[in-house]
C-alpha cells in the first residue's frame, strides 16, 4: 500500500514549507527585537541596572534570531534525511517526537523530548540547556492552514532550494528508486560513510550511486552544525536514532529504527571506521584527502565492502564483540598449552614475527606474541572478521597487508593466513612486519601442522568444534536452568564466555531481539561510567539483568517474573561455577614468541 501519494506529499511539503517560513519569520521578529518575544529571552529575572538589561536583551534577541534561522534550515534538512532514509512516510513526521543532540547539549538527558507546547517553549528549552538548536514544534506547524507556496519558494534561501525535495513521478529519478524500494526501507539499521565533501564511500544496503542526494543531505547537516562550532552527535525521532561520527576526513552515520542506544551505534561506527583504517591505514586516508578533498574513496576500498558488511553483522550478533572481549573455543588447559608451545617452538626463530594467532569458527584457540606487544580485542575482531569473510580454497595461503589500528594505525603488518589442513576449521595467522618472509612463514606453518598432527591437537580441535556446546556448558547441569542465556566477561583478561543459544532464542530473530536488549542495557550502563552496579529489566518475555563489578561484567536473560533476590542467587551460583571452570574457556596465559 502506498501511504504517501502525491496529494499527501504535496500537503506535507506545504506544511513543512510553512514551518520554515514560520521559523524564519520568528527569527526575523527576534532580529527586529520584537517586544512580544521578550519573555523567551535568556535573561535574568531581575535587573538593577537598565543598561545591562538592554545589553542582555539585545544579545538574547540576536542569539535567538540566529537559532531560529538555523532551526528552520536544520529542520528541513533533517526531515529530508529521515524521509529519504525511509524513516518517515510523508506527513507522519508531524506527530512524532523529535529531538536533536549536538555536543554542547550533552548534559540534556531526554533527547526524544516532545516540544509541543508552542514555539516559545523551544526558546525556554534552549534557555535551560544554554543553546538554541535543540528542537522544534511540529504539532504547532500542523495546525497552521493556508499557505501560499509560490510566494514562499521565492523567499527561501538558495541553499535549501538546491536540494529540493519535491517528489517527482519520474521513475528514473534515483531518489524515487530509493524511496520506492520497500526492501531497502524495511532495513532496521543503516550505516553510511561519506567523505567530508559529501562523496559517498559506503552504504550498508543498496548502491551508493543511487543515494547521492541522501549523502549530500547528510554532509550538509554535519557541516551546518560544524559551521556553528558545534558537532552533530545524534538525532532522535520516536524509535529512530541517527548517530553521526566525524573521523578526520570521513563522516560516519548510523540510522536505526530500533531505539538503539547512541553508545551502541557509536561503538558500531567505531568498528566500521577501524575496519577502513585496517584496509588503508590512517596515514593513507589522511594523505589522500589532503591531496584531493573530493577523492572517491570507493576506488581504494573496492573489494572490501564485503569486510564492512560482514563486520556490521558480526558486531550485531557476536556477544564477545559488543562487550569488547574475546571468546575462545573450550578446551582442557593442558591441551591449549601444548598447542601454544608448539607454535612458540616452531616460530620463535622467525625474526620480525609479531603475533601468531590460531582461530576457528570466529573464536580464538590461542595467541602467541612477541615480548612487549599485545593484541587488543578490537584488533582481534578485525582479524576474525577478515578470516570469516574471505573464504577461499582451504589449500590457499593468503598473504596480505593488514593494519591493526590499536597496534599501529599508520602502518601495515603482513599476514600469512592459512588453514592448518584441508579439512579443519582451524586457521593460523602469522603476522609480521617483514613483507619478504612469505616462504619462511609458509614453511613454518607446514612444520607446525606436522607437529600439531603428531601431538593430536588438530583432532582435539576438530572434536571440540564438532561437539554440541552443551558438553562444555549446560545451564541445566550447573543448576541454574531458570537462566536462559548469559554473557560473561572477565574485566582483567577480556575473556568472554556466553552460553549457547537455546529456545526461546534459537531462531535468528529471537536471538536478535535478545541481543538488542542486551546492547541497550549494556551500553546505557557503560554510558553512565560504571564502577559497581546492576540493572534489572522485567518484561513479559524475559528479565534482563546486567551486573558490572570491577572483576566482571555479566548480562543475563532470565525467566520473567522471578523475585529479584532469587535471580541474584542464581547468578551468583553461575558466577561461582564460571570462576571455578574458567581455565577451560579462557585464554589466561599468552606466551611469548
Amino acid at each position, binding site marked *: 500500500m502506498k501511504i504517501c501519494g502525491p496529494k499527501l506529499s504535496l500537503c506535507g511539503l506545504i506544511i513543512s514549507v510553512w514551518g520554515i517560513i514560520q521559523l524564519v519569520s520568528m527569527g526575523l521578529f527576534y532580529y527586529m527585537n520584537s517586544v512580544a518575544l521578550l519573555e523567551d529571552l535568556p535573561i535574568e529575572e531581575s535587573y538593577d541596572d537598565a543598561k545591562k538589561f538592554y545589553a542582555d536583551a539585545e544579545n538574547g534577541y540576536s542569539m535567538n534570531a540566529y537559532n531560529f534561522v538555523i532551526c528552520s534550515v536544520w529542520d528541513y534538512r533533517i526531515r529530508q534525511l529521515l524521509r529519504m532514509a525511509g524513516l518517515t512516510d510523508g506527513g507522519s513526521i508531524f506527530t512524532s517526537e523529535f529531538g536533536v543532540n549536538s555536543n554542547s547539549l550533552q548534559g540534556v538527558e531526554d533527547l526524544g523530548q516532545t516540544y509541543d507546547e508552542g514555539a516559545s517553549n523551544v526558546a525556554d528549552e534552549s534557555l535551560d540547556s544554554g543553546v538554541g538548536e535543540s528542537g522544534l514544534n511540529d504539532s504547532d506547524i500542523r495546525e497552521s492552514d493556508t499557505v501560499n507556496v509560490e510566494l514562499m519558494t521565492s523567499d527561501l534561501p538558495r541553499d535549501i532550494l538546491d536540494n529540493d525535495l519535491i517528489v517527482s513521478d519520474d521513475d528514473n529519478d534515483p531518489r524515487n528508486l530509493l524511496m520506492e524500494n520497500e526492501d531497502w526501507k524495511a532495513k532496521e539499521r543503516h550505516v553510511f560513510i561519506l567523505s567530508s565533501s559529501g562523496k559517498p564511500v559506503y552504504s550498508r544496503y543498496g548502491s551508493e550511486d543511487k543515494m547521492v542526494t541522501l549523502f549530500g543531505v547528510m554532509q550538509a547537516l554535519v557541516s551546518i552544525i560544524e559551521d556553528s562550532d558545534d558537532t552533530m552527535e545524534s538525532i532522535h525521532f520516536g524509535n529512530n536514532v541517527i548517530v553521526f561520527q566525524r573521523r578526520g576526513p570521513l563522516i560516519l552515520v548510523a540510522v536505526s529504527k530500533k531505539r538503539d542506544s547512541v553508545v551502541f551505534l557509536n561503538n558500531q561506527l567505531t568498528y566500521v571506521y577501524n575496519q577502513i583504517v585496517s584496509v588503508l591505514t590512517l596515514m593513507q586516508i589522511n594523505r589522500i584527502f589532503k591531496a584531493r578533498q573530493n577523492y572517491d574513496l570507493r576506488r581504494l576500498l*573496492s*573489494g572490501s565492502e564485503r569486510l564492512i558488511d560482514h563486520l556490521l553483522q558480526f558486531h550485531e550478533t557476536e556477544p564477545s564483540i559488543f562487550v569488547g572481549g574475546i571468546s575462545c573455543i573450550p578446551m582442557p588447559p593442558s591441551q591449549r598449552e601444548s598447542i601454544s608451545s608448539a607454535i612458540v617452538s616452531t616460530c620463535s626463530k622467525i625474526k620480525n614475527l609479531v603475533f601468531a594467532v590460531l582461530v576457528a569458527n570466529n573464536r580464538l584457540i590461542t595467541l602467541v606474541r612477541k615480548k612487549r606487544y599485545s593484541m587488543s580485542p578490537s584488533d582481534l575482531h578485525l582479524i576474525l572478521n577478515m578470516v570469516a569473510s574471505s573464504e577461499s580454497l582451504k*589449500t590457499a595461503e*593468503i598473504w596480505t597487508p593488514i593494519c591493526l589500528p590499536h597496534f599501529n594505525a599508520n602502518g601495515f603488518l603482513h599476514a600469512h593466513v592459512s588453514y592448518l589442513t584441508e579439512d579443519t576449521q582451524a586457521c593460523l595467522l602469522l603476522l609480521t612486519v617483514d613483507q619478504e618472509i612469505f616462504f619462511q612463514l609458509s614453511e613454518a606453518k*607446514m612444520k607446525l601442522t606436522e607437529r600439531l598432527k603428531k601431538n593430536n591437537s588438530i583432532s582435539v580441535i576438530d572434536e571440540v568444534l564438532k561437539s554440541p556446546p552443551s558438553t562444555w556448558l549446560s545451564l541445566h547441569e550447573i543448576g541454574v536452568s531458570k537462566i536462559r542465556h548469559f554473557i560473561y566477561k572477565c574485566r582483567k583478561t577480556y575473556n568472554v564466555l556466553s552460553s549457547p543459544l537455546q529456545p526461546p532464542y534459537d531462531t535468528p530473530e529471537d536471538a536478535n531481539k535478545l541481543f538488542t536488549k542486551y546492547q541497550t542495557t549494556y551500553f546505557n550502563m557503560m554510558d553512565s561510567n560504571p564502577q559497581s552496579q546492576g540493572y534489572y529489566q522485567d518484561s513479559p518475555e524475559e528479565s534482563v539483568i546486567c551486573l558490572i563489578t570491577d572483576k566482571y561484567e555479566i548480562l543475563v536473560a532470565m525467566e520473567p517474573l522471578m523475585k529479584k533476590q532469587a535471580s541474584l542467587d542464581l547468578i551468583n551460583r553461575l558466577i561461582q561455577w564460571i570462576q571455578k571452570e574458567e581455565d577451560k574457556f579462557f585464554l589466561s596465559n599468552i606466551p611469548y614468541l
Partner: protein
Amino acid sequence: MKTIEGKVVVLGAQGVGKTSMVVRYIGKMFSHHISPTIGASFFTCNINKGEIRVKLQVWDTAGQERFRSMAPMYYRNANAALLVFDITHPSSFSSIKSWVKELQRNVEEPLILCVVGNKTDLESQRKISREEAEQYAQSIAATYFEASALNDSGIEDIFLCCADGMVTLSQDKLVKTLRVTPSMNGRSDRDGQHDRVVVDHPTATEQRSPFCC
C-alpha cells in the same frame, strides 16, 4: 626424476575471474559467490611431463587498486604470467595492456606470457572479439586462450602451457630463476593431496614463440 619449480603470477582487473580459474583448476570447483581476493593467494600444483615434474607456484593476485603497489613482489622472479581479462568488459582488456607494459619494464628474464579471455559462457555479451585479442597476444609474443571457469572449458590448457613453457625455459642457460632439482624422489613436504598429476600429456607444440610455450 627431475623437478622444475617455477613461479606463475596471475594478473588482471578485479572480477575477471582470476581466482575462479585457479580454484577451478586446483580445487575442481566453481562458486558464484567467491570473495574478492585480499592481497594475494598462493597455491601450488604439480604437473608431470614424462620424466619431469613441474611444480607451479601460483600467485593469484587481487586486482584492486590498493594492492597495485604490491604487485612487483609477485611478478618479480616470475617465470610465467597469466594475463586475464573478461571478454564482456573492454576495460579489463585495456587493463592487461598496462600490466604487460609494467612487466616489460620490470622483468628481465624471459617470461612465459598467456593472455586469457575468460567468461566465454557469456558469448552473447562479448565485447572483445577473439581476433582482436589474438592479434594483441601475438604482438607481445604471448599465447591466447579463451576459457570459462564456469563451464570448466580451456582452463587446464593454460596451466599445461605454463608447465611446457617451464620445461623449455629450464633448458635455457640464461634462466636463473627456475629451480631445477635432479632428485630421484621429487616428493617434498609441499606436495599435498591437491596435486594435479598429469602423466604424459600430449603437448601443444604448434604456435611456439621465443617467450612462450
